């Protein structure tokens, strides 16, 4: 049994320790928001926050997250309680097919938790691990900037539903 914290709650999983975290989350724990895209850590569709960093979980063995904090798109917000980034995403109609967007939002959440006012170049650097075949990049950029502004005005939240705050995760552990 391997145990880790998923979206604020401790879970125990009996899958083999070398099972990629993505499949533990999708197949064993039945959270389907994180997607399978390439299986090689190249496209970012499977991104989750691991101790606050956007991490490619299709190549991350379960054993590597023992005792750590994992946040999926479901832990960032849900249709009733959106994070500020998710609100910006909906308002700007960022998604097209939508398949990569959980990963995009995870990477954007990690970015804003470390840099509250990113430049275009900083957005490029933080988001270049996430491929979108529909080409939503221009809208992603605008939505991140909008969310950064909203957060600076106060009242916003990077995570709407989880107990876990990625910005302070390292000090907590």
């Amino acid at each position, binding site marked *: 049994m391997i145990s880790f914290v998923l979206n604020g709650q401790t879970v125990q999983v009996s*899958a*083999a320790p070398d*099972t*990629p975290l993505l*499949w533990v989350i999708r*197949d*064993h724990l*039945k*959270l*389907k*928001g*994180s*997607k*399978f*895209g*390439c*299986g*090689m850590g*190249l*496209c970012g*569709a499977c991104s989750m926050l691991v101790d606050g960093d956007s991490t490619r979980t299709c190549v991350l063995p379960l054993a590597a997250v023992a005792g750590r904090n994992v946040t*999926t*798109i*479901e832990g960032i*917000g*849900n*249709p009733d309680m*959106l994070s500020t980034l*998710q609100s910006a*995403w*909906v*308002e*700007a*109609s*960022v*998604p*097209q*097919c*939508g*398949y*990569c*967007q*959980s990963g995009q*939002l995870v990477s954007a959440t990690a970015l804003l938790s470390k840099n509250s006012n990113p430049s275009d170049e900083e*957005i*490029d*650097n933080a*988001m*270049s691990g*996430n*491929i*979108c*075949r*529909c*080409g*939503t*990049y*221009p*809208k*992603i950029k605008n939505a991140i900037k909008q969310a950064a502004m909203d957060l600076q005005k106060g009242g916003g939240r990077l995570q709407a539903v989880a107990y876990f705050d990625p910005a302070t995760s390292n000090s907590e552990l």
Partner: protein
Amino acid sequence: MTASTLENEKGTTRRSFIKNISLAGAGLVVGLPLTACVNASQPNKSQTALIPNALLQITHDNIINFYLPRSEMGQGTYTGLTTIVAEELDVNPSKINVINAPVGDDYKNIEYGFQVTGGSNSIRTHFLPLRHLAANARLVIRQAAAQQLNVTLADVKTDNGSIVVNSKSLPYGEFVDRANTLDFPEHAALKDKSQFKYMGKNAPRLDGLAKSTGTAQFGIDVDFEGLHRAALKRCPVMGGKVKSFDDSAVRAMPGVKSVVKIHNGVAVIADHYYQAKNALVNLKVEWDLPETLAAFSSDSTASDNGKALFKTALDSNESSNAYEQGGGFEALKNAGKVIEAQYWAPYLAHATMEPMNCTVKLTGKHLELWVGSQAPDFAKLTAAYYADVPKGNVTVNSTFLGGGFGRRVNNDFVAEAAAIAKASGLPVQLVWSREDDMKNDCYRPASMVKFSVGLNSEGLIDSWMVKRAGPQIMPYVMDDIVDGLMPGFLPNRMVDGLSKAGYSLYKSLLVDHASVEGLYEDYDAPHKSADHVTADPGLPVGNWRSVGHSYSGFFKESMMDEIAARQNKDAVEYRLKHLKGNPKLANTLTVAAEKAGWNKPLPKGHYHGVATHASFHSFVTQIAEVSVTNNQLHIHNVVCVVDCGLAVNPDIVKAQMESGIIYGLSAALHGEITLQKGEVVQSNFHDYPALRINESPNIEVFIVESDDAPTGVGEPGLPPIAAAVANGIFAATGKRLRSLPLKLEG
């Protein structure tokens, strides 16, 4: 301009729509549950409801259900079609409950006769039928309200899903029972454009919330108790068959439940996907290779192999004529000057973000299918054939598509899933790995063209001759669907024979229009001819976003640039001189030149490249601002002007232009599928890169204000971009790049 002008221009009436698409004897269906053509899982089926036809239902308790007849794969049809209904029904689109339509005759694409989403035609073909449907529904509810409230019809107004009489507001549902007793109107007036509340205005996508919270359901997300996962080992060369296999090292592996041989490989079925995928490594399979394809290598220099296969066909006297105007090819002899050039575009993979997958549950002779498909009716027929069940016993559940781009018109992955379920007796979800996806696509056909353009004494085009060599898509599409279309009693061998008959027909006799579309239409010239010759190594090909236009946009617009440049003429002015017969395209070019500041000073080292192309009834010009430093290309900005008639949701039109440009740039800068002894070399995003955010240019989209009925936007944004960039590179360096992907070195 009035709404009725919009109507007349498209010429489709509700009558013909009813005839083609809707429930026979449509009108009011009183107190009936939804009929057999509607999904059994539809909510409220036992309620009294106003059901004008299979697409729309207004329930007693005021739920408005719209059965979306087209597939949502990112292009925005979910929002667009719903907005059209909402406008004439007079209700905010966000109040409409959108349900993916089941498979049924009522949901066929009226232009194709099949339930297919493609060809950028969803908004164009549904615009009037859906408006008439919703306008008639609104009228009958008003009529019912007038009776029920004892007022004149003129006193009955509507607002956002409610009847309003003397400032008292009552929801539509209150009048459904009475409406059901009235004759359903057929000629309710459509709104004038000036009355539009929702069309032509920006509003958030209706699927945005689900897709921003990980709650939108894609095919790969389907799950239920007892569902197993399958992974399939296929021949490294597409079309190969299993000669023998050894699964002794596989059966005892963790989670493995079954190993079965199917028509094109050997499948491992396990509790979880990663277990099935891991087990494939230990599965030993001997293959019978398809001879023709296995002999082909992209880098071969033999005269009947590699690019020479295409070049030989192009230079041969063999060809089929697809289009001729004026004196045809003979006219070239009279030209004062002839400019010739040859261009090349490679095979391309679609690489949708969601790899192909399909879920099948077979219970006796009944089959239930879950799939994200651009052709759910073909999926149904294909599954019936491969699982050997009656076609009527198949239920299809459609999900969102994690990208389509033409790939999900094909049903090869549905055939596999059905065959695996049949052979194993287990409910299975077949999931393709990215490598499976990259190596087993229905590829954009590689193409080589030669232009011979004759100029008159003023340097204008007198004769425009083009010949294209490459595979044709249609025979492969026929191969893909023929299994499902043929009657079930035909033996497999006969069905195979029929599909091959289609292939030989197209090889020698017929030109698939997709082979030459976009190569010759746009510019004025007294004499034209377009010819095709099949050169085909045997790699399966299919519809790739914008189909023939995906290469012809690059070919034609590079050639036009070349003709202008060789005569030292301005690329925009020279094009405009040949667009007298194409005023909408000319207008997008004029507007783009103005918006981009064509011929105005640019930052040092920056250059403009222009391309303009009509496709799928829409008109697009793009101007790229590029620089080249130390052989490194930078694309700083792209100005895009589109005329797509009325923009139902301008923000989605803009998004589709950005999408076409970025998908097109992936192809222009990186995309190339090559073969080594018939095997596709590329396997994942490291050797078939997709454009990333840091390479994505700034894009400015301008939509031409129009009172004409809407046309499509899913594909037309793509064709010009490669040429716009290549023409910019020529301006910057003097190098004319005639092959894709664009390579500055070598």
